[in-house]
């Protein structure tokens, strides 16, 4: 028995001792680790792909709020962005900053990982192209940051910053420093990127040129008084020209098509967020902006945004102006359709969209009666018969970023939509923008220009919109054209920021001159068909509301946050960071950019 015991004892100890290290070595079996990846060009590109969506997702909503709410394009009753009182306690404000910095961190790590781990199966062209794409995204993030927050710290390499232990002591870099850093980043990207990407929809050299042109145009006014720096303007012109004249890209012929799912990969698109529907594990992969812009009755899925809408000021810019007396503007069943961009930007009374609700559904109306949509989505019929209430107090809803219902998504993409998820790409730098950047760079500090290149670029945009060409253009012309061309593309605010760099009071005056009111009484007016009688018999022919009072009219009492002040041009830095790093509250410093290189 003793012998058996001894034997058992030995066995037991042996079991405990055998190759503990092997037993304890548990690599991640479900996922690649850094050192197994980046083994061919395809993997290098796959490492860059998330930069086209994931880290940007939490910026997305704020992007539209800043770009179009603050700037006066999109009305949201009482919203902090609309009132220009965004504060750091607002979810979108915090998300925006977290998101932009996540883009920077992810771009930095992609660069570092490719340098460290790329295997012999990769090619230099492939590695460079992947790194070049990452750099353009990094530059894009910084470009948004400098225009939103002004001075921000430069985080060139996250791993190194972590190693130095100085991560909580950074100062902000001066604004011109940040612009120089963006330029330096894009110049390297241009060097690395191919003229044509191996896959449509990716960033190529011309995407980088385009962004660089816009950066130079913006930067040209910084630190100036009344005029812009000619060298910067020349650069902007040079790079914009490359995109407009040399890239071989052509404008998407039909304006409305740019924002359709089937045109996700249009030539028009230079840089885009490439959303895709993916399961709920992959929150942040898909486009969810439609929910923010439509009513829940618009599609089979969530929606809560029908209460906001294109502002009266934007409507006026499109010619939909209410003069207070006759039925005009939104208070009229007749639409201004000369400029084709109007209908592609905002839906109003009388508009029917054949590419929304193309399954021609019959809905049960608010009164229980069936309502047919045989011609597609009819804005007035939808609110009047189905919802039973005219939600938007500006008389309009947004069209861009909207896919439609499930049938529309199926038709555009071949797959159904999911709740708060669709496949629509968001173009954040497109050819139309570059044409106008080109024209503005040529105009430069002149009061007007008839330069043939400027006229060419400017009139190409107008031709597509269906409006008359011009023979001489001024800053005002371009400012307005940009607004109409790029409304709800998260861009208009930065036109004010760009102007504020060298003409702050003019930028402010333009904001303060906007009509930021809304309407009352639209419901009664439209759905009692009051418009049929208005104007036919003086005072008595005014449509009436429930109390027998005249309707509709502009709601002069609507709070609009005006008048705005200069401080509105920079948003506060997130307060969480100030608690950790008090240096951020101090004056920005000069960074020595020569310490940074890209390899």
């Amino acid at each position, binding site marked *: 028995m003793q012998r058996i015991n001894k034997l058992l004892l030995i066995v037991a100890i042996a079991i405990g001792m055998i190759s503990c290290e092997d037993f304890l070595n548990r690599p991640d*079996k479900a996922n*690649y680790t850094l050192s197994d990846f980046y083994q061919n060009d395809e993997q290098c590109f796959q490492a860059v792909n998330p930069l086209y969506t994931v880290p940007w997702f939490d910026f997305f909503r704020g992007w539209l709020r800043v770009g179009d709410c603050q700037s006066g394009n999109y009305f949201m009753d009482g919203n902090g962005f609309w009132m220009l009182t965004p504060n750091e306690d607002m*979810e979108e404000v*915090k998300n925006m900053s977290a998101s932009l910095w996540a883009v920077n961190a992810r771009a930095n790590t992609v660069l570092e990982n490719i340098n460290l781990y790329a295997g012999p199966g990769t090619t230099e062209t492939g590695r460079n192209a992947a790194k070049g794409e990452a750099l353009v995204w990094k530059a894009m993030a910084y470009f948004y940051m400098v225009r939103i927050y002004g001075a921000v710290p430069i985080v060139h390499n996250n791993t190194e910053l972590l190693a130095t232990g100085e991560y909580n002591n950074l100062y902000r870099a001066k604004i011109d420093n940040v612009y120089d850093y963006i330029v330096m980043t894009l110049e390297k990207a241009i060097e690395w990127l191919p003229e044509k990407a191996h896959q449509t929809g990716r960033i190529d050299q011309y995407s980088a040129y385009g962004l660089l042109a816009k950066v130079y145009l913006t930067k040209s006014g910084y630190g100036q008084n009344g005029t812009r720096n000619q060298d910067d303007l020349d650069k902007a012109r040079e790079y914009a020209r490359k995109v407009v004249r040399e890239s071989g890209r052509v404008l998407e012929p039909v304006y409305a098509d740019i924002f359709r799912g089937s045109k*996700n990969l249009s030539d028009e698109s230079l840089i885009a967020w490439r959303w895709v529907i993916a*399961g709920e594990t992959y929150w942040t992969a898909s486009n969810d902006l439609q929910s923010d812009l439509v009513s829940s009755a618009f599609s089979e899925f969530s929606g809560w945004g029908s209460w906001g809408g294109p502002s009266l000021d934007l409507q006026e810019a499109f010619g939909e102006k209410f003069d207070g007396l006759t039925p005009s503007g939104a208070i009229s069943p007749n639409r201004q359709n000369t400029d084709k961009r109007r209908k592609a930007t905002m839906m109003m009374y009388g508009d029917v969209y054949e590419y929304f609700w193309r399954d021609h559904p019959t809905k049960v109306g608010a009164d229980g009666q069936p309502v047919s949509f045989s011609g597609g989505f009819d804005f007035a019929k939808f609110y009047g018969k189905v*919802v039973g209430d005219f939600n938007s107090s500006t008389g309009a809803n947004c069209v861009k970023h909207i896919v439609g219902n499930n049938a529309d998504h199926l038709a555009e993409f071949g797959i159904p939509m999911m709740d708060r998820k669709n496949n629509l790409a968001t173009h954040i730098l497109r050819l139309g923008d570059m044409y106008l950047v080109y024209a503005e760079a040529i105009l430069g500090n002149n009061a007007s220009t008839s330069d043939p290149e400027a006229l060419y670029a400017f009139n190409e945009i107008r031709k597509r919109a269906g409006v008359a060409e011009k023979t001489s253009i001024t800053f005002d012309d371009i400012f307005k054209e940009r607004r109409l061309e790029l409304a709800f593309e998260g861009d208009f605010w930065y036109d004010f920021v760009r102007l504020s760099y060298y003409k702050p009071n003019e930028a402010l005056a333009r904001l303060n001159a906007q009509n930021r009111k809304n309407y009352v*009484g639209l419901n009664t007016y439209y759905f009692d068909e009051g418009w049929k009688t208005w104007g036919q018999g003086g005072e008595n022919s005014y449509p009436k509301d429930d109390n027998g*009072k005249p309707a509709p009219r502009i*709601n002069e009492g609507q709070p609009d946050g005006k008048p705005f002040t200069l401080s509105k041009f920079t948003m506060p830095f997130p307060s969480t960071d100030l608690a950790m790093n008090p240096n951020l509250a101090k004056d920005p410093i000069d960074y020595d950019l020569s310490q940074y290189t890209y390899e």
Partner: protein
Amino acid sequence: MAQQRRITGTVMDSKDNSAMIGVNIMEKGTINGTITDIDGNFSLNVTTQNPVLVLSSIGYKTLEATIGNRSILSITMEEDAEMLDEVVVVGYGTMRKSDLSGASISVSEDKIKSSIVTNLDQALQGRAAGVTSVMTSGAPGSAVSIRIRGQATINAGAEPLYVVDGVIFQGGSTTGLSLGLNLGNGRGAISPLSTLNPSDIVSMEILKDASATAIYGAQGANGVVLITTKRGQSGKAKFTYEGMFGVQDQIRRLDMMNLREYAIYNHSIAATTGGTDGTPEYRDPSLLGKGTDWQDAIFRQALMTQHTVSAQGGVDAVQYYVSGSFMDQEGTIIGTDFNRYSFRVNLDANLKPWMKLGLNTMYSKTSERLGRAEGTEGVLTYSLLTPPDIPVYDAYGNYASTVREGYTRINPIAIAELDENLLDRQKLNGNIFMDITPLKDLTWHTELGYDISNSRSEQWQPTYDFGPAVQRPINRIYWQRNNNMYWQLKNYLTYNGRIDKHSFIAMAGQEVWESSWEWQRIGADNLPGNEIRNPQLGDQDTYQIADGMGDGAMASFFTRETYNYDDRYLLTYTYRYDGSSNFGPKNRWAGFHSAAASWRFSNEAFFTSLNSIISNGKLRIGWGQTGNSNIGGGLWGASLQMFPTGLGAGYKQAQIANPYVKWETQEQWNLGLDLNFLNDRINLVVDLYDKTANDMLMQLQLPSYFGSRGNGNSALTAPMGNYGTINNKGLEISLNTRNFTGDFTWDTDFQISFNKNKLVALSGTDASGIEGYGQWSDVVSLSRIGAPLYEFYGYIADGVYKNKQEIEEHLWGEIPEYGYDRYSTVFVGDIKYRDISGPDGKPDGKINTYDRTNIGSPLPKFTYGLTNTFSYKNFDLTLFVQGSYGNKIFNALSRDLTGMGYWNNQLKKAMDYANLIPIDPDKQYPVENPYNSGEMINNWFEDIDNVTLSNPDTKMSRAGKSLPYNNQRISTRYIEDGSYLRIKNIVLGYILPQRMLRKGQIENIRVYANIQNLWTFTKYSGYDPEVGINPQDATGYTFGFDQGRYPAPRIISFGVNLSF
């Protein structure tokens, strides 16, 4: 060979000469034995020459009876007053309680039983000094969060290690999210221990100080709870049945506005909001009824019932304990319930005189409907915000909704009853072990333990249609299956030695375990109907698949030496060496030492004269190290996660690697004193401790420019590493007195625990801290260096601005550039936050982020429990109160309910909103009413020079639409005193007299009535002051944040225990 001879006898209790049932009788030196029957009688064939019987029964002194020539015996047994010699489980062995030098505490079966306990962890509340137990939710089956001696770690799991009969109980995952449920943003609270049937438990030992937990080394840092289940004893089969039936309800209600009050509130806001017309129906509140009481609609009287049948007994070679139980509990919020089936078989077999085999097996199956009660999207918050003008059902019995201006809130009852979160779990847990005694006093214990569990969850979102604005035309389903497998193998040798007055136990052993898990999730949209819930029926293009897997392992070697000299001087030394797969090769292994000594001074010669007063006195001192490795696998490296993009598959780096991440190490000192007075009538245990966790495992706290904040998918997760130090100091007192003995007995148990927690150090700058979030990214707490963890962080509110002058004085005369505007600047009636600092560290006349400060700690100064047990003849009465003192609660629900919103219902106190009145009512500001054209109204409230408040002492802010000034900031407005005293349990029991039972062959029947949570004394205005960790915060850095938490119900129950 001696001759067999039959002896018979009776065993009686020395106290009252009553027959003793189930006394275990063994013939000494043999395996021959029996037990007494219902009349205390036994018979046994003895085989040895001078037979000696060993009689044992729990709670009585073991007795050896020499038989001599007698064949009929009458034996009396004495109660064991000296419980000191109780044998307790200590981890890898047992020890006499009197030999312990460390701090540990027992919770015995009777304590577990004296409260209704559906989950085992609930039994620890208020029962054990040093243990803070907080129910994370009042939902059936939900988890209790337990902290032994304070919060000792911040990120790596802080729950204690549970060991059931030697097998580490696998929690798997306690987050609803990881089981595939949609319970809100964060963790949800699924209790792994709810799979265990409390009736099977015979005792729980809680190991508190490091010298006690060090034997668990790397897994012992948060304390260890050793759970021992029942085992059979030789003798006739004994059957027991325990049945219970109870009714639960919610007794507290928040004071919400009813319809009439809501109408008054709504209409009066409209009157000072620039002509907003309000809702016409609200113009004459006297015509309105009370409306819907949504609290009554979502709360219900809920039933619960529990039945356990068990059998135990055995012959000399084999003993068994077998049980089966069923528990069914409805939740007090509609749409929630829980049920559990569990079975246990524990077997012991004496194979050879030197070899014993044991087998423990537990199988359980639970099913839950979890609903979605908590958080800002939870049914509770949602229903409170729903205006009282919507009925629950319309005239046709459908869920009603009222569409106003094209908008409605979805009927909360519909949400509660339609959307479902279902969870089924199964668990098989147990072990097989052998004790081999090759030499006298040497035992080799070898054991294979396992824990196999799986779960299946279902998230179901049916289609519905409550009118055009509120419909879901496409339904959705998800199924998720999780599988977990765990095994452990351990071997240890124990040698018991004794030479004269020196006795010692030496133990050395080895253990390895491996744990692996995997999950698969499938889902689909657009099923043809709501009847058959099968993802396969959904639209193929919406099929979703997700999966994951992982594993972990640990290898350990350990030893413990205890030495006892003359029962006066006791020494213990423990060492454990652990290797964990959670760490990289650089820091995989770590060793943990502990040493303890105690002096039983009452056994000293000089003390004998005092023994009549102090029957036992022991001084204990201990020091030890333990560790923590609970960070999950693979975090020392960096992996890439597949993520779909519009350009094809993407691979994104999940986290920043830190190959140097290593063990969190905790060091603890303990000083204890045990005193028993007056022949153990009074027992006092006092412990003082000081423990420090170094190299705390957590994610590095980085500023947002590092890119590591925000959405978990977007952010580049900060590296996991060793970045902090936490200290806990505390005092624990347990006092147990037996005030009366005899026919009338009265026992009192009192325990109180003081703990002081401090974050000592954190990597980064001095200014860094650990943020805790509410439901999303709102910072509600900040743990700062030098202060306790989880302190609430926000503004100090000093009432409201009464007039313009007050605003200008407070803000140093800074007038808004374009004047005051009630829609975009600060205005009369806004909350006046205290200006305490600025960028230069001094008040600056501005209210901004520099004015945030510590506004209260959610951690209690002390917690306590007091149990009084009375018995008289067949009656017994237990009264148990328990409480917490000095903790603050952030009442986030009240924040939502005093937001002065226009569309949502509010607390009644919101009617006292800062009410603007004109100073000069005659001054005219005519404007046209935008809602009523042609009508002129007087907009006096736009002129800040002409407004003041009718209720200047109000704590509520002004009401209206588009309020620019943030009156809902995290501030002292929502901080409330969370101290409470709760009458946790009152149990009245009656044991039916024996003579009534004889005929039915029944041994014993006890019936009882129990009231749990009868009443809570507290100043807290929410439902329930027992608010623990915030399950809605995914990081888990928020405590005491009440965001519509499921309140604990009152339970009235009746039960019967019978045995035959």
